[in-house]
């Protein structure tokens, strides 16, 4: 079993939420105190780049590089926005983190705001996370009282105010420009890029949007240093730990903090305690609903960004959803596509009409009414939708379809030839 240093979950006691007193007693806000006195904003940005932190919200873009595009020295109002929309099926790690330890995100927000020289921050949080929003409001009040938020933070001359912004459902709000529209109170369709949010973001001002787990890592990088952070990972290409949310046909479906680069087999067998009802592992989504499937042949693949790209999938959010041998992968893909088609905002045709067509094709195939022509049409839609949609939603939606066609085309053929789903009892 891999040695697992607990960084993000070091204060976590299931069923309990840690607030300022306990957070401070275990080293909380030490990173902020040290950095704000001794480091320049540029030094923090460079440190994050050196630590090779990659975004934890799904896309995996290097945070330091993203921050490098940000006009931190430009005068005028700038915003830091934390994306806690977390609505991708199989992904629940940010919810667990904020149930356990909300101050960690607050400290990360203040440090990130200082690094980027933003005066105002928002934490955009999904409707279902009302408890987490309450935790954050309390933590913000405590941090303000302690002098970590507000005017002239810790005598540094730096001002930062932080707000929690609620939502009312809809997956598209996780797309950063849709989120900015949602935050402004306009219809949350995605925006055209460029201009990127770093140039014209919230209320037309320079804005950076980062995921909860990404920002929660910043205080630890500041305290521990870039080399320490990189060494937390098991693979040379990886860095840091990762919160893995386990779900599906596993015996234990909980959220664990594990090193980046842990092999899939260990996640399934050690942490998931094997497959539910003593069945065999067939496939999994390695990082949320938009990541192409892994199969039995991938059990020894290290779970990190680079290794998963090499096998045609993505690390995503590390929400691992496992499927057993009796699961029909056409049915799984249909369930996923129903989600994406329903959550499409309708702004662009490939997503609005394309996903609807893919859903219909999969319904035909799954019900046994499919023909070889339907299979060909499905392959065609993969080409028509991938790379042509306005934002990443439809692109992500086609991830499982690509995985289905790569690894389970024979299963589709069996549905066509048998005139029924071979897995239905």
């Amino acid at each position, binding site marked *: 079993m891999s040695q697992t240093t607990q960084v993000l979950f070091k204060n976590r006691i299931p069923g309990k939420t840690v607030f300022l007193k306990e957070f401070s007693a275990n080293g909380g806000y030490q990173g902020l105190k040290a950095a704000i006195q001794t480091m320049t904003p540029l030094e923090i940005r460079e440190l994050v780049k050196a630590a090779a932190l990659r975004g934890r919200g799904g896309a995996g873009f290097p945070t330091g590089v993203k921050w490098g595009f940000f006009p931190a020295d430009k005068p005028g109002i700038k915003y830091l926005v934390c994306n806690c929309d977390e609505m991708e099926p199989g992904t*629940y790690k940010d919810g667990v983190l904020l149930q356990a330890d909300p101050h960690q995100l607050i400290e990360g927000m203040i440090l990130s705001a200082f690094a980027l020289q933003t005066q105002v921050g928002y934490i955009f949080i999904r409707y279902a996370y009302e408890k987490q929003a309450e935790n954050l409001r309390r933590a913000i009040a405590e941090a303000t009282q302690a002098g970590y938020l507000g005017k002239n933070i810790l005598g540094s001359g730096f001002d930062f105010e932080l707000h929690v912004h609620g939502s009312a459902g809809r*997956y598209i709000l996780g797309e950063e420009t849709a989120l900015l529209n949602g935050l402004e109170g306009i219809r949350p369709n995605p925006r055209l890029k460029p201009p990127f949010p770093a140039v014209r973001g919230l209320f037309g001002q320079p804005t950076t949007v980062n995921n909860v787990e990404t920002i929660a890592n910043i205080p630890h990088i500041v305290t521990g240093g870039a080399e320490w952070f990189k060494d937390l990972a098991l693979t040379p290409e990886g860095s840091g730990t990762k919160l893995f949310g386990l779900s*599906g046909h596993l015996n234990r479906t909980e959220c664990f903090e594990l090193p980046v680069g842990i092999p899939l087999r260990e996640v399934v067998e050690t942490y998931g305690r094997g497959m539910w009802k003593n069945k065999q592992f067939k496939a999994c989504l390695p990082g949320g*609903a938009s990541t192409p499937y892994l199969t039995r042949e991938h059990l020894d693949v290290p779970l990190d960004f680079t290794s998963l790209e090499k096998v045609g999938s993505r690390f995503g959010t590390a929400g691992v959803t496992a499927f057993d041998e009796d699961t029909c992968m056409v049915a799984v893909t249909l369930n996923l596509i129903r989600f994406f088609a329903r959550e499409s905002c309708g702004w662009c045709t490939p997503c609005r009409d394309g996903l609807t067509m893919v859903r219909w094709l999969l319904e035909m195939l799954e019900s046994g009414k499919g023909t070889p022509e339907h299979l060909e049409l499905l392959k065609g839609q993969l080409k028509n939708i991938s790379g042509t949609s306005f934002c990443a939603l439809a692109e992500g939606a086609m991830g499982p379809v690509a995985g289905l066609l790569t690894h389970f085309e024979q299963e589709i053929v069996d549905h066509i030839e048998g005139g029924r789903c071979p897995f239905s009892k």
Partner: protein
Amino acid sequence: MTPIEQQTTDHLLDEQALSEFIQHAGEIEHPREMIIDVLRAIQSHHGWVPDEGVELTAAILGLTPLEVEEIATFYDKIYRRPVGRFVIHLCDSVCCWTRGAEEIAAHLQKTLNIEFGQTTADGLFTLLPSCCLGCCGIAPAVMVKQQFYGPLTPEKVDELIAALRQEGSA
């Protein structure tokens, strides 16, 4: 703010919440960002958001009703039609599906004698499908009044319905 005073708004928002929203909207640079907060407060007070709720939100924030309506109709957790006292959101996404959400869906429909999108005749329950609730670790799950219940079995569904019925008759 004359239009608000002319309206009878008690059934939409209590007086204190209304005055706080009006005050806050006057203090901040971008009052439009409050749309969801106001709509959620109206829904919490009134049960759902009627046309007058959209108009009141617009009046508070200095917007047109249409500007509020295009937000209100976008989000699935804002109800623009009457709902029962308890809205049961059943997750139909993949993790819950692997753990028997279809069986729970069938059981709920049978027990409540309604289909998804409908409300029971006594006005107690509305049944709605929902995308992933973030309950992947306790699948299958439902959300009722932002509380979560899972992992569910038909028996646990019966217990939940009985408890909610009791709460509803109290």
